[in-house]
């Protein structure tokens, strides 16, 4: 049977009427799931968990009002288990804000810190009110600073789906939503917002990255930093946002439409437009701690809802601090596990997010008492969740108290890791440390010592991230310069493995400047030819500096924003990085999925990776040696792909013997970081033939990348032919 009347009948629910009146509002017992606030026929269903509460009250506000318009205590009959649920009829979801007041014991030694005087934010809030406009003091009283709102969940995606790019093909670009376009030079109509980021998609496409990793976008309070800049006296921010308030709510202060409560639509449109451009979206998520700090911190949400469920507590009820921020979320408590899973499913399903990077993910492997678990339930659950199956899961596999799990994070064949050892190894090589060639070789070939069973794509390779020096500063400063952070330069990492090339900070000496330019190119060339997933930080491709500040989390200004004038000023560097990205994508030899050779075909020219020195096939791992030469090779049954990279961190020029190619093949030069632009790099597919095929010279502190091309082919490959290239004859 079909037809309108029946459809209409099914539109009506037999339970859409009130059974009670509370504080003047018609209500009925609600549905406990899903948690949070959901539109239902004729009203809104509210559901919140607290297993130790003695009483729960729904607090309703007219949108924008300081004081509540009504408080509705949940009758005992509205509780199922530890969940309080109520449907309130006649509410206009767009015109209200809501929060909770929870009563229960205040007994810190037993883990309870209930305080019915506090108005608490729903952890499942899909919208948060109280921080709609970046950097502007809240209009709400301290008694109820943050409230939840009810978001629309309909959106016209026009067929968009997550992109599901193969991990081995990813090139990740780490960016801060505000910092990316807030600088006046960005020229966008909506600076510092999701919409502003959309306006810069052509730039991202031009650069060639295919995955953007956004630093925290869940609601946080950028004004919760009490420190002042001791140099300039200015108020400092919590600019990076690793202090989450509402895990389901995109930050309104990053939305051009945040004042209108339309951040969900604006965020979804950003994802849709990025996907159209072939760019995946990965979110940096912070489940290791919350914005409530320790005993001295404010009671905003979890602490007042059910402290001993949500936080890891010592036997006497104090906060474990594995995160370095005062508290630690109790990630392996079943309720918190459910919360994390609900949250990520929501972002994956509702926002089409392609993956997640987990801040201080080692904490996800701790039990409620802090013990490191061999088989952590939450990590396993995320690995095998059906909704998250295609999402990239990336662990920052350490925490703030020394648990370092790079290479042995419980991965369930799903998780990849920020490879901290890659960062350190490449940095030490770049500054010409002794005894580091073997380490660099291991890192460039996908860190088989760490990821042999998982493959190179388990390794997210990076030399810089938001945390630490920018790449330009890595070659311009020996020491961190964090005086403006208000902590007497005591904050920030001391182990930077940086080298200033002879002068600390900005330099006029053209020799120093040229060396820095070369070192930056060396870093990019190594990063983009290594096995594993490369990640670069927004701005590094145009030489962004933070004046030696390696912990700029608290600065909202020139220091932390991307100055788009650099794109013009450093167009040579941009071109180098753009070409290196295109080169990587053109060469399967650089994007292996396994560490070992796939098949031992007789037609293969070479192993998948081989090592060389000044003599071909004779690598030198002696501690005084500073040359690493790698040859990466792939054969798919018809085409040979072969790339040779020589990196010299010695201060003298070295002559290297090149591996001999089959008769029909010849070495072509893709990049030489010692050459002046535009000869430092060539468009992939248009590399000129190397004049001498048996030897090449690698200049002091520079790197060379060659590709094996057909001996008779001209230099007229076009970029669109990249996918066909290289097409080599079979050997023999």
């Amino acid at each position, binding site marked *: 049977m079909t037809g309108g009347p029946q459809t209409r009948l099914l539109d009506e629910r037999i339970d859409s009427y009130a059974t009670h009146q509370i504080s003047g509002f018609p209500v009925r017992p609600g549905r406990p799931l899903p948690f949070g606030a959901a539109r239902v026929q004729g009203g809104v269903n509210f559901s919140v968990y607290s297993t130790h509460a003695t009483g729960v009250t729904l607090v309703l506000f007219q949108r924008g009002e300081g004081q509540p318009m009504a408080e509705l205590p949940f009758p005992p009959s509205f509780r199922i288990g530890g969940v309080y649920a109520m449907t309130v009829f006649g509410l206009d979801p*767009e015109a209200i804000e809501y929060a909770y007041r929870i009563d229960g014991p205040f007994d810190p030694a037993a883990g309870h810190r209930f305080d019915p005087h506090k108005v608490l934010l729903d952890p499942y809030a899909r919208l948060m009110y109280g921080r709609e406009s970046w950097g502007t003091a809240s209009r709400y009283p301290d008694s109820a600073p943050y409230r939840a709102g009810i978001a629309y969940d309909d959106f*016209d995606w026009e067929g968009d789906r997550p992109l599901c790019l193969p991990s081995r093909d990813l090139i990740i670009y780490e960016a801060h939503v505000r910092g990316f376009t807030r600088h006046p030079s960005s020229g966008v109509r909506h600076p510092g*917002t999701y*919409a502003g980021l959309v306006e810069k998609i052509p730039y991202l496409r031009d650069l060639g990255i295919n995955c953007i990793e956004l630093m925290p976008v869940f609601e946080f309070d950028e004004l919760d930093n009490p420190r002042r800049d001791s140099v300039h006296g200015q108020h400092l921010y919590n600019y990076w946002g690793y202090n989450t308030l509402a895990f389901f709510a995109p930050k309104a202060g990053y939305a051009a439409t945040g004042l209108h409560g*339309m951040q969900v*639509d*604006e965020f979804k*449109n950003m994802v*849709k437009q990025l996907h159209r451009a072939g760019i995946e979206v990965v979110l940096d998520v912070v489940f290791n701690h919350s914005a409530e700090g320790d005993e001295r911190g404010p009671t905003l949400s979890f602490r007042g809802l059910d402290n001993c469920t949500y936080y890891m507590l010592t036997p006497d009820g104090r906060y474990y601090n594995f995160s370095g921020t005062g508290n630690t979320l109790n990630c392996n408590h079943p309720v918190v596990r459910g919360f994390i899973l609900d949250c990520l499913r929501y972002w994956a399903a509702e926002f089409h997010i392609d993956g997640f990077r987990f801040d201080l993910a080692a904490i996800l492997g701790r039990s409620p008492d802090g013990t490191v678990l061999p088989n952590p339930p939450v990590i396993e659950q995320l690995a095998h969740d059906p909704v998250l199956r295609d999402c990239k899961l990336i662990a920052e596999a350490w925490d703030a108290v020394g648990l370092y799990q790079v290479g042995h994070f419980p991965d369930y064949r799903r998780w990849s890791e920020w490879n901290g050892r890659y960062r350190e190894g490449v940095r030490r090589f770049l500054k010409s440390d002794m005894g580091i060639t073997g380490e660099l070789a291991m890192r460039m070939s996908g860190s088989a010592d760490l990821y042999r069973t998982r493959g190179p794509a388990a390794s997210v390779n990076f030399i810089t991230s938001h945390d630490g020096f920018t790449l330009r500063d890595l070659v311009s400063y020996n020491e961190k310069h964090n005086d403006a952070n208000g902590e007497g330069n005591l904050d920030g990492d001391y182990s930077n493995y940086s080298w200033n090339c002879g002068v600390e900070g900005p330099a006029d000496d053209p020799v120093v400047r040229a060396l820095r330019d070369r070192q930056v190119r060396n870093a990019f060339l190594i990063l983009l030819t290594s096995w594993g997933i490369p990640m670069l930080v927004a701005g590094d491709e145009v030489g962004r500096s933070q004046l030696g500040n390696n912990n700029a989390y608290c600065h909202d200004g020139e220091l932390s924003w991307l100055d788009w004038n650099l794109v013009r000023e450093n167009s040579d560097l941009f071109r180098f990085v753009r070409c290196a990205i295109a080169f990587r994508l053109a060469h399967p030899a650089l994007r292996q999925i396994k560490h070992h050779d796939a098949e031992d075909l007789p037609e293969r020219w070479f192993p998948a990776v081989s090592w060389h020195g000044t003599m071909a096939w004779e690598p030198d791992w002696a501690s005084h040696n500073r040359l690493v030469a790698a040859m990466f090779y792939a054969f798919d049954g018809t085409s040979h792909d072969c790339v040779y990279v020589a990196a010299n961190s010695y201060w003298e020029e070295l002559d290297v013997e090149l591996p001999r190619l089959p008769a029909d093949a010849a070495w072509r030069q893709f990049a030489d970081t010692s050459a002046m632009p535009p000869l430092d790099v060539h468009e992939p597919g248009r590399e000129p033939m190397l004049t001498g095929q048996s030897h090449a010279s690698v200049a002091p502190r520079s790197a060379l990348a060659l590709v094996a091309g057909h001996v008779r082919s001209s230099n007229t490959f076009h970029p669109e032919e990249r996918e066909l290239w290289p097409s080599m004859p079979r050997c023999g």
Partner: protein
Amino acid sequence: MELSRHTQGGVTVIALDGSLDSGTAPGAQEDLERLMADGQAIVLDMSRMSYMSSAGLRILLLVHRRTEEDGTKVALASVPAEIRAVMEATGFLDFFEVCDTVDDGVEVLT
């Protein structure tokens, strides 16, 4: 929200006056569907709109989708700057033909 209708060059021009939000959206949707029932091309004159909320954006898109099914063409005209910025940032503007003036809208649709 007040709606008024007139015909200009064979095109229906519907002027929206006031705020389109969750309070006014259901009535406005009903009015729009009634005024658009004759299948003529339509220009929505938004010059006197003071505010558009999420609910308003959705009504506009729903109406647009429905007219698309009927093969009716719709253009937005004289969209106030703030509303235009909101529609642009959320991507809703991409769905519509947008014209500076009602006259432009009539011209585009005829």
